[in-house]
């Protein structure tokens, strides 16, 4: 699991096949993890190609707010896994801050449902094509997306529904 050269043959072949299919994707490794930077428009196609070639397990999806980064303020991170090849692949998608939209992966991996809702809830990233993009962890009437870096800590009044007695 270090650099691509030391991967088992089948896993390396899988990555090479994906690289051939998606010339715009930039493969690499970061501290021993297999990483690929995917263009936003390619994400769904890449994920379904990855699923076809063996990365059948959906593991994780989250977002990171990098504030001022030239590639784009946000980054959506998807982790896919092949249980057969013992290969874990991390997809990084840069998302511009002024247009926080990413195509939804729910059509490829239904497990992306909650993860995308969580990322929408906490980062305000809209996953276009998601069948029910609502808040997940916070109440509906919450204002703002608290995991964004410009969302202050402790500076907002606690937002809860007013305590009322049911009739």
């Amino acid at each position: 699991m270090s650099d691509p050269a030391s991967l088992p043959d089948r896993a390396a072949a899988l990555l090479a096949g994906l690289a051939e299919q998606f010339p715009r994707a930039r493969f690499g490794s970061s501290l021993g993890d297999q990483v690929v930077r995917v263009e936003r428009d390619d994400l769904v196609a890449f994920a379904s190609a990855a699923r076809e070639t063996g990365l059948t397990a959906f593991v994780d999806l989250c977002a990171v707010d990098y504030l001022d980064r030239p590639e784009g303020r946000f980054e959506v991170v998807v982790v896919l896994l092949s249980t057969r090849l013992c290969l874990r692949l991390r997809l990084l998608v840069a998302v511009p801050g002024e247009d926080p939209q990413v195509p939804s992966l729910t059509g490829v991996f239904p497990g992306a449902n909650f993860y995308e809702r969580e990322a929408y809830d906490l980062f305000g990233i809209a996953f276009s094509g998601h069948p029910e993009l609502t808040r997940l962890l916070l109440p509906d009437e919450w204002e703002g997306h608290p995991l964004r870096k410009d969302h202050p800590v402790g500076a907002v009044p606690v937002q809860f529904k007013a305590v009322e007695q049911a009739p």
Partner: protein
Amino acid sequence: MSNPPDFVTGETEAPEMVNRPAPPPGPVPAAEERRTLHDLWMAGTEAPREVARFTSEGAQEMLAEEQEPILAGQMGALVGDDYLSRPGPSGEDTQVINMGPQHPSTHGVLRLQVELEGETIRRVKPIIGYLHTGMEKTAEALTFAQGPTNVTRMDYLSPFHEELCFSLATERLLGVEVPPRAQAIRVLMTEVNRVASHLIWVATQGMDIGALSMMLYGWRERELCLAFFERVTGLRMNHNYIRPGGVAADLPDGWEDDVAGILAKVPPGIADYQDLLDDNPIFRERTVGVGVITAEECRAYGVTGPILRASGVAWDLRRAFPYSGIDRYEFEVPIGNGGDVYDRYRVRIEEMKQSLRIVAQVAETMPPGDYRTDDLKVTPPPRARLDQSMEALIHHFKLFTEGFKVPAGEVYEAVESPRGELGMYLVSNGEAKPWRLHVRGPSFAHVQALPVMLADSLIADTVATLASADPVLGDVDR
């Protein structure tokens, strides 16, 4: 009745996932619109319903079938399955009931909205967030040295695994090697923790389906593990014991006796549970063939751990991506073949035995040496040096006020927690505090897959299935 599961070792070839067309693009109502639709549907009239206002989660709740493009997910029919046929649109012969959020069988504050037709479940929608405390945001305000105190509170039944995962991620960013004794202590604590967590699972699973004595027995054996944790770390839960660079303190004198006590008393307990439950006709009636999920559904929904193994995939991160030197010890990966509640029970019972096997090996081969790294950037100077050396005092003070700086980078680290793959995505920008910590809790994925397990089952099986998924809501909501 299905056959008892086969227990094998190593990887098995799993079936391919069937190709499935993407769900048809449907109209996606905005949150406001969803809310109106929901209120209208639940009340059946345009007049506002007074009581609903106090408990409503608005747009996050279940909608009438005509309005719900993600229906397939809620009916559990997303992955190559055709067992579900619906007679008509919802609302006519069906009723929607709530389970939770405040109900002991929901293992915390999970809320399930269930659409029933008679006694058959047609749709399930898990609603979560009642325990959300923003721990990922909190992690950004704590230093790497303080991080374990935060993460240990997420999955409160397997705190050592959370601490271990955070420490491994930090150490990989730092490039720090942990001495062999610290690694062995980590394995010892996490494996005893796995036993404790599975014991509580057996206890609550038994209680939830009516085997009340299981509750007492499971707790009895778990107490031994917690007493051991208390002797080693000072606390029964939320230990903050495994820290970046090693562990907080060496094992106390006489730890071998505690471990020997666990190894002597827990296996007879497990044998008792098996006597009580394995061939118990009532237990089998309630669990065999209930809450079934297939291997490809598990993969598509991110379901891992004992649930995936009970579905026939020998996937264990301790085997696949060994961490903390766990590959030095011998153990087997038990799997089932039915993917139902009974197989999950068998897999977890077998896992306890395997964990105890590892514990015995660790106790036998505990290496001597230091219990934390000698990297002075991470490890504070020994207490005795503070009285003699000004530099040591300054060093100590700096480490505990500012913390240590971690090189910029990002890393995804995962360990096999008792519930499944516990992953942490840790981003550092070179400061002493993480830029971002995302926790991929196994329970989160399992709660999301509940509709799949519950599809077309009876309402009475909901509790058995929910308990078998073993969700810890502190881990789901974070």
